């Protein structure tokens, strides 16, 4: 029952569809037919000629092109300038076509080509030129770079000036521009001629560090102020000094090395933050290093005093550019000796009486090492302590150090002592 119904509906649907196809077919034939007819009926030939027009214009002036003997409704004017191509439709006036060139074309300086076409056929061609219009005011776009230079004769910043008219057209070649710059008390102007859309001027670095301000002027208009920083050149050799509280090697005072004011070859103080390496070479030919950064040309670096007597040869470098004369810094021994006290069957080893240069107790923290060797001279252990109130103790508990004979070696501030002990 239901199947029959389905069959019926399907058939009717197909019929409906066939009807639709019929309509589409008819429509198609009609469209194709119409098209051909239109093509054949509209062939009108005309030979339009352009009326005289101004070949040289100034940006912003209205421009109109007129063609006589023009009848074809489908005529179009194609205009090309440096910014693109535009197609214009004509307004008709008694057998004459008038094309008003739109503002976006008349305001742009440069050569404009026009082409009149009819039915994809070129009927007439020509061109006109538009010049920049400096009369409505001049605007100046200017750049200065690099923004920082070094005070050496070869370095410069380039001032690039692009004056434009009110419609943003660069002015014509040959336009005079004045580039003015100020440095310290000196203001100087240079005349620059525009060429290839812009004018430029190299501003060479003066011999002094400072700041150059630059501006430009053209047709009475002024640009904004631009800046280039003149940094000092590379450092030249300098001297260093040092300051310290005393000359004892107590390991607990800072010694500060300072450079004098580091300058470049033109006596400019080197730029802040210049890194100076201080290298101190001691009597064992070991180089200790510290670095300082300059502030107003002076770099400072701090070391802490060594623990044992020595002499430092200190030299500072601005690597690759400058160095100082070496100076010599002697350190006298502060700690001259100490005592070893054994107690508790030698299991308690006390390092005592570590005294400094005025026989005062040394400031806390002097490193003390104790190396233990067994009877055969084999290494057993290395114990390290730091002094507290001028002494330090080492404990050798029975759990870890069997009874027997040992040799101990103690080192305090470079003073080494050896001793035999017997643990019970």
């Amino acid at each position, binding site marked *: 029952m239901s199947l029959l119904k389905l069959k019926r509906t399907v058939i009717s649907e197909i019929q409906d569809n066939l009807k639709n196809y019929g309509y589409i077919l008819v429509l198609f034939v009609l469209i194709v037919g119409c098209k051909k007819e239109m093509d054949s009926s509209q062939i009108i030939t005309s030979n339009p000629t352009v009326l005289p027009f101004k070949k040289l214009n100034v940006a912003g002036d209205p421009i109109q092109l007129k063609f006589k003997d023009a009848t074809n409704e489908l005529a179009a004017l194609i205009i090309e300038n440096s910014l693109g191509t535009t197609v214009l439709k004509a307004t008709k006036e008694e057998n004459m076509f008038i094309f008003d060139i739109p503002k976006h074309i008349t305001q742009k300086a440069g050569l404009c080509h026009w082409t009149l076409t009819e039915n994809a056929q070129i009927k007439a061609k020509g061109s006109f030129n538009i010049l920049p219009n400096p009369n409505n005011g001049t605007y100046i776009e200017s*750049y200065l*770079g*690099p*923004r*920082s230079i*070094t005070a050496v004769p*070869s*370095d410069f910043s380039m001032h690039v000036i692009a004056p434009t008219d009110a419609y943003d057209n660069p002015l014509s070649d040959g336009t005079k521009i004045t580039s003015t710059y100020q440095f310290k008390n000196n203001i100087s102007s240079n005349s620059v001629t525009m060429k290839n859309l812009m004018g430029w001027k190299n501003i060479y670095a003066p011999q002094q560090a400072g700041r150059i301000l630059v501006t430009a002027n053209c047709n009475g208009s002024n640009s904004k102020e*631009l*800046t280039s920083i003149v*940094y*000092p050149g*590379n*450092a030249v050799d300098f001297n260093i000094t040092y300051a310290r509280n005393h000359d004892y090697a107590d390991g*607990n*005072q*800072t010694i500060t090395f300072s450079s004098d004011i580091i300058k470049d070859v033109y006596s400019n103080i*080197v*730029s*802040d*933050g*210049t*890194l100076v*390496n201080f*290298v101190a070479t001691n009597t064992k*030919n*070991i*180089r*200790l*290093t*510290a*670095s*300082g*950064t*300059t*502030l107003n040309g002076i770099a*400072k*670096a*701090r*070391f*802490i005093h*060594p623990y044992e007597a020595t002499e430092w040869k200190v*030299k500072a*470098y*601005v*690597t*690759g*550019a*400058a*160095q100082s004369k070496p100076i010599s810094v002697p350190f006298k021994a502060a700690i001259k000796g100490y005592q070893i006290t054994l107690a508790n069957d030698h299991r308690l080893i006390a390092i005592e009486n570590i005294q400094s240069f005025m026989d005062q107790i040394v*400031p*806390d*923290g002097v490193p003390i090492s104790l190396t233990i060797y067994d009877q055969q001279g084999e290494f057993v252990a290395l114990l390290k*302590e*730091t*002094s*507290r109130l001028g002494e330090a103790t080492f404990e050798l*508990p029975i*759990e*870890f150090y069997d009874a027997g004979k040992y040799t101990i070696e103690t080192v305090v501030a470079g003073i080494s002592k050896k001793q035999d002990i017997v643990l019970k």
Partner: protein
Amino acid sequence: MQKTNVLLILALFIGVAFHGSSIFFTLETTYDALIHLFFADHYANSWFEPWDYRWYTGFTVQAYPPLVHQGIAALSYIGGLKFGMFTVAMIGIILFITGTYRYGLLMTGSRKIAGYTSILAVFSSTFIETLHIFGQLPSILALSILLHSLPEIYSWIKTGKLRYLATSLSLIAVTVTSHHVTPIFGMVFFIFPLIGMVLMDASRDQIPSTKSITFKVFIVQFKKLFWRIVGFGFGSLMLFIFCILPYWINSKKNPITQVPIPHGSRDNFLEVTSSGLVFFLIPWGILLFILPYIFYRYFSKRYLFFGLSFTVLTILGTGGTTPIPLAVLGETAFNILTLDRFTLWATIMALPIFGEFVYRLVEGDLKEHIQQRFGAVYHRIIGGLLAGGILAMVIFTMSLNYFRPSQPQKINMLPIVNFLSQDMHDHWRYLPLGFGDQMAWLSAQTKAMTVDGNYHSARRLPELTTRPIERLENSKFRGVQGIGSLQQFLTVPEKYNLKYIFSNDKFYDPLLYFCGWQRLQQLENGIMVWEKLNVPPIPAIIEKEDVSTTLKIMWSVIPLLTVILAFIINIQLVWYRILKSRPLPQGVFMNYEIKYTKFSKGLVNINHIWALLLLMVLGFGVYQFYLTNATQIAPKNVIVSYYDALDFKEFKRAHSYLDPDSGVDISQYMLEVSVTDGILSSYAKLDSIGVEIVDETQTSARAKVFTQWVTPLEKIDKLYEHDLLKHNGKWYIAPSTFDNDLPPDQLISSNTTAFFNHGRRRITTQQTNHEDVLKQPVLEILTAKLVKHNGSYSIIGELQNVDNVPSDVVIKASLYNDNNVELATYNGKYQLKHKLMPKETTTFRIDFEGIAWSSTKDTLPPTFDPDQFTPMNFKEQPTRFNIQCAGNVANTDLYKEITLQDLELNTEQITGSLYNAGIQEVTIPQLLISYYNTNKELIWLDHHFLTEGVRIQRKQYFDFKPKELNDLELINSSLENCFVNGLPNKSISEKAFPDREHEHAKEQLQPYSGVGYEFIKIETNGYIGNPR
């Protein structure tokens, strides 16, 4: 007229009140919920476009079935994303409770037992865990709808009424679009046994009792119902393919070829007890105690197929505890699937039987049996214990996140979102660190993109897929591999246009610093923003993998359509069911209700024995736990405990392990500990500890402790020695002595040159004015060489900031072969100073790091290489190189006041101290040690991190082993292809330093005769953790 089931109403009432109110406090801190929120945000913004640029440099959301996300997205139009999420969760809760009710009804045929089942479902620890700890909304929704579909499927096969086929298929379609794994395995584990049960019931109808069902009868029924089964099976298979067709196409196109990410559910639960707790004990909960009953019931004839399914699920859920799951699933499936879902299904499957058990215990034959045999009091005790057990599990599970938070504290995202949207910061990619799953919530709120992501199946970059890490964001939890992967992103950030990092975990800060990043600012919410200079913005056009419009429309329309269809098809029934306005036909399964008359005595005995056994095992476990954690019963224990305490910064506990006779009181100890800073004390995680006890006597011992610490920079091995003493049966550690050194001055003054860069001076929405862009500082490369050391290639050299302003240095080197074919590119990482003052020099070394295990077929190394460095694999010999160096004005991290002192050169080791002469505390000092040959030419460079910081006016001693440079080959030494800021190095050299004095650098070298070199130079660099 049917009566409303009071138990079901009660379950719904309690369930919605309990879960519905607590999700507001739990859901956002779960693992998954925020990921779904992010996906929802995607659909809310671009419903029809499956490509999302925000994660993984772009990925497709067609990698996850969309229904839940689209549901949240649709609801978000009403009340925002979170409203959508909570509403969907609420719907999930209701569907789950009603689903278990209908499932219980189907299984038992008793409305009462089904009611019990639904109440137990509300309190089932597996559901609580899935919702409140894992936040797996799609999984819950899909499972619930699957449960709803089961009675319909039963009815279709049993009765053959087309209406039931429509209802079951409509529900299956919804299941498929909400979760992909659930229906696949649901088919196997729920629907197959269900079909078996239908056949059993059909067979039962032919003969007088269940017991007399024979295989023959069963086969006859199977033949009879065969076409219904096939009809349903075929229909659901079609839906399966059709409803999420784009998903299948995407999986085919982008197969998951990535290194498996370790998941706790694959652990051996006996070894990794925390995984055992989360993936076994909690989901099973109280069900463990009645396992014998569940097995007994499920292996009765009617449920036989469920019994088999349940057994398989139970075994698969045990993960790596037994080798069976691996053998059954095979290597691939085992490593992709998270096995906890098997436990989830097993426990859900057990619910009706649990309901039946409780019914029989509360008001059925078991109650009578126990009361007769053991007395009424015992029955009450058992009941109380059961109820107490259930409640205890509920509270324990709910509070798990409170006591052991799986996520960092909730982060206020607004400052970050504002930061990203201001000043065109979203034109670069960002990377959150230490955000946990909240990174998904951040991503959802911004259109800025990140290289990271939170849905690891969709990862695309080989740097990610070849490492077993879920996210870069939490890479520290993946140890060396995680950090290694993160390092690749941090070292070459311009490859990913990665410029900003939001750090919520200071652990990563040293890594960022030494990879050349700098701190930008701290946001109001305490998140530190790091930036990298010289990174280009994301190009306007980024690649994407497009799919056909048909697939896009299918993906966007079908899911919600399945819901609407299912709603239309089922609404009538639902309405009748709820309102009882018309008597409904009873489900045919109602005919198979069992009369519970006599509870098996043997079963009671067995279950008692089982429960006792279980209690004993638990007790033993607790005892073992106590023993290994008893801190002071052996020398080894006290050492391990001490380091554990130090690792977790529990200094009071650490102090309690120190010898009380030593006279170090707690305040002294705290003072001494609190002043130490450095990579070990502030940025390290103890990875492993080995203790060797030597010289042990009754009362003393000496321990050598070999520790391995994972730090953001490298793995540090450190050997400590301790003396141990025993007092009153307890072992103690003799405290180590501290440095007594006093700084020389009380008050010091210091001048520094500080810098500030305005950035854009004019407030404008346009691009920064050209006048506000500083000139790039000029750097000069002094030497550059390509060398081969121990088989891997490196570029070493030296460069100088020859400008007048401090500079940040980015240096990138490429290797070429003889035919000028580029072989590799990499950036400088640790082995250079990234910030240079004017005229400062730095040596540098660039290693070419490959993408680890770039072929996924490579087997992962079982133990991870401590140096975490994967040398690039070169097919051809590199012979030439190119160096691109860029300077940018730097104004931070310019501290240079670390003095090298007390240097001693021995043949075996070099020792010395660093003295901090300035007024910033250097947290992680670094030494750059360069080696030179007889002609004072650079031949190699190495670095060394000090494990402790240098405090102001104090010293920090260091020692390191000088290199032995036997295997060193110089391949090319040339400055020809070196460029600085895009300009040839030669022109810079001629202009900036025409008369360079080369002797200066040579004079500063330290003579030191080693294997293969005659001079060394030690440069210092340091990370300041807390700049003043």
